[in-house]
C-alpha cells in the first residue's frame, strides 16, 4: 500500500513533573511531544515511524476533526505500547519502530493533531526521546488504466471453422503455453547477488598501508 509523508511540525518535548525542574533531584519520567500539521487538511493517518531512544512506553492521543462546530476532543489511540521489554536494560533502546492504523484503538480519520506521551520509569537513563518521527497518510490508489474499447468489450466470438482432425485441442495448448510463459517471465525477473571472489585489481595486490577512513 503506498504512503505519502505528511509534513508535520514536531514541538520540543515537555517534561511532566511535579515541582520545579531545576531544583528537584530526580529526572522526569514522562515527556510529551506535540505534533501539529500546519497547512495540511485533516487526513487519515496510515503509519507512524520513528527511532526510539531509550523510551520504555508510548501512548498516543489524537484530536480529530468532528462533524460539529466544536473542536474535537482528545482521544487515546494507543495506550502504553511497550518499546523496551526491560526498562533497565538496553533491549529495544535504539530500535526503529512503525505503528500502523490497524494497531490503533480508534479510527484515525480526519486527524488534526497528535500528542505522544513517552514514559521511562527507570532512573538509570540520562534522557529519553523519540527521533526521526515521520507521519504517513494513505497514498493515492493506482490510476485507472484506460483500455481500448475492443479489449474491455470483446466482440462475442463467432463459431470457429471446423478444424482438421490432427490438430491438438486448442484449450490444452493455450494452458500449456500460459504455463511456459509464466515460467520464462520468472526466469527473466531473477538475478543473483553472488560475488565474483577476486580480491585483487587486475592481478595486482601491491598495497601500501591500511586506510583509516
Amino acid at each position, binding site marked *: 500500500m503506498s504512503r505519502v509523508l505528511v509534513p508535520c511540525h514536531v514541538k520540543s518535548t515537555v517534561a511532566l513533573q511535579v515541582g520545579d525542574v531545576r531544583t528537584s533531584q530526580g529526572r522526569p519520567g514522562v515527556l510529551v511531544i506535540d505534533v501539529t500539521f500546519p497547512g495540511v487538511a485533516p487526513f487519515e493517518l496510515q503509519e507512524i515511524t520513528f527511532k526510539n531512544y531509550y523510551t520504555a512506553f508510548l501512548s498516543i492521543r489524537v484530536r480529530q476533526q468532528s462533524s460539529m462546530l466544536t473542536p474535537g476532543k482528545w482521544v487515546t489511540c494507543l495506550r502504553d505500547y511497550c518499546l523496551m521489554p526491560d526498562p533497565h*536494560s538496553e533491549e529495544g533502546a535504539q530500535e*526503529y519502530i512503525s505503528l500502523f492504523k490497524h494497531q490503533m484503538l480508534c479510527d484515525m480519520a480526519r486527524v488534526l493533531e497528535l500528542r505522544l506521551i513517552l514514559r521511562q520509569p527507570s532512573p538509570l537513563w*540520562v534522557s529519553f526521546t523519540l527521533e526521526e518521527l515521520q507521519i504517513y497518510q494513505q497514498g493515492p490508489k493506482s490510476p485507472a488504466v484506460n483500455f481500448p474499447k475492443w479489449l474491455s468489450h470483446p466482440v462475442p466470438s463467432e463459431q470457429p471453422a471446423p478444424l482438421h482432425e490432427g490438430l491438438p485441442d486448442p484449450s490444452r495448448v493455450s494452458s500449456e503455453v500460459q504455463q511456459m510463459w509464466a515460467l520464462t517471465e520468472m526466469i527473466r525477473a531473477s538475478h543473483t547477488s553472488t*560475488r565474483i571472489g577476486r580480491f585483487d*585489481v587486475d592481478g*595486482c595486490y601491491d598495497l*601500501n*598501508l*591500511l*586506510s583509516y577512513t
Partner: protein
Amino acid sequence: MLQEESDLSLIIAQIVQKLKGSNLYTQLERQAWACLQRPEIRLESLKEDIKEFFKISGWEKKLQNAVYSELNVYPLPSHPAASPEHLKEPLVYMRKAQGSWEKRILKSLNSMCTELSIPLARKRPLGEQKELLSKWNEMGTDEPDLSHFRPVYAPKDFLEVLINLRNPNYENGDSISFRTHLGLIQVPLKVKNIPELKECFVELGLSTGQLGIDDATQVPPELFENEHVRIGQKVLAQQDSAAAQQYVRQGSPTALRAELWALILNISSQPEDILYYEQLKTNVIQHDLLVDSLIYKDVKLTASNDDYYFVFEDYLYQVLLCFSRDTSVLGHFAYNSASPPKSYIRGKLGLEEYAVFYPPNGVIPFHGFSMYVAPLCFLYHEPYKLYQIFREMYVRFFFRLHSISSHPSGIVSLCLLFETLLQTYLPQLFYHLREIGAQPLRISFKWMVRAFSGYLATDQLLLLWDRILGYNSLEILAVLAAAVFAFRAVNLMEVTSLAAAEAVLADLSTLKVMPLLQIFLFATVT
C-alpha cells in the same frame, strides 16, 4: 495480521535472494531440466509434478536444510528505515567503540609494517611460488625468522577496551551507587538469569540423558547410549539439518560427530567446493601477505606448544592461510558489528576503483586465533572439508567473540552474563575475589574468547561445542565459566591475590564439562 504476513513475505524474499546465488540453485535447476524427460512429468501440471519429484528424490530436503541454515545465520529483515549500520549493531555507542578499536588495530598493523619495512602484500616471485607449492603439506618444518613480529593484539588488550565501554546515556555517576555494576562490565545489556537459562537449556536437565554424563563406564549402555547412537544414525540417514541440531543438544557420539556437524552447518562437499579451496591455495602461493607471518607466529606460539594440537600444525597453516584469501567471508560483515580494513593499490591512494580489503577476507588474526581451528582437526582430515567447516563456524559463532556488539551471543553479553551469574549465585565468592583485587572476569575472559579451546581436554571441548551448535548460541560458554568458579569455590575462598586465584584455575584439563553445567543450572540450591 497484515504486518505478520508482510514480515513473512519479506523474510521469504530475502532468503530466496540469497539462495539464488548459491550452488544449490544451479543444482536444482539442472535436476529440474533433467527430470523433464521422465514420463510422470506432464506439461500442464509442470510445477506440481516437479515439486513432487523433488520431494521424492530428496532435493526438497536439501532445500529445507539450506533455508534452515539461512534462518539460523542471518538476522531477520529489519525496519525499512534502518540503515545497514543499524543491522550490524543497533546501539550507536557500541558502533563507535568498535570503530575506535578497529582504528587502533589498523594503527598497530601499519606501524609494524613501517618499522619492519615489510609490505602488507606482495606478489611472490616464481621461484618462491614453486618452493611453497612443493612444501605445501609440511609448512610446519619451515622456520622463518618471526622474532620481530608481534601479535596485533591479545585477549587481555581487548578486555581493557570492554572494561572502558560506557553508554553516554547511562547514569554512571562518580560515586558507587545502585547504578554501578560490581563487575568489570559497566553496560546494562539484557542477560538471562538461571530460571531463563533453565528454560533455554532444557535438554541439559537432570532427567534427560546426556553424552558426557550418561555414557560413563559405570553406566550400562542400554540405559541411554545405545538408543542415542541409534537415533543419531537415523538422523544422518534422513539428512535433516533441524533434526540434527536438536539431536546434538544431548551430545554427539564420537563416530557420528563429523557428519552431524557438517549436516548442521549445511556443508556438503561438492566438486565445486574442492575447486574453490584449490583456487584459494593458488592465491596463497601467488601472493604473500603480512598477515601470513602473523598466522605463522600465532600457530607457533599457541597450537604448536599444546600437547593435543601440535600434530596438526601443518593443517592449521593450510586452513588459516587460505582463510585469509577467502572473499566470501566478507559477506558476514553485514551482520557483524566489525568492518573489514580497507587499503589502496600502491600509488592509487584515494581512487575508489583501486580500493581493496586487506586481508581479502577482512579478518585480522589475533593471539590465539588458530585455536579456533585446532579442535576441528580431530574431526576432519581432508583440508578442504576442514576448511569449509571452520569457515562456517567462524561466520556463525567465532566472530562474535572478538567484536564489540550488543548481541546476546556477543562477547560483551557473555562477560556480563558470567559476572551476573557469579554475583547472584555465589555472592560471597564474588565479594571475596573483588576485595583481593582478583575480578573473576580477568581470569575467565581468556577462556570465553577462545571458546575454551586449549583449556579443556579435547573430548570435553567437543562435547561443549556440540551444545554451541545445538543451541545456536554462545551463552553456554558464560554458564560454563561460572560453573567452573562454582566448582573451585572452596579453594578460591582461601586465596589472597590475583596470582593465587589464577593458579587455582590454571589447569582445567581434568574437568568434566557436562556434570558441571548440569549441577550449576539444575542442581544448585538458589
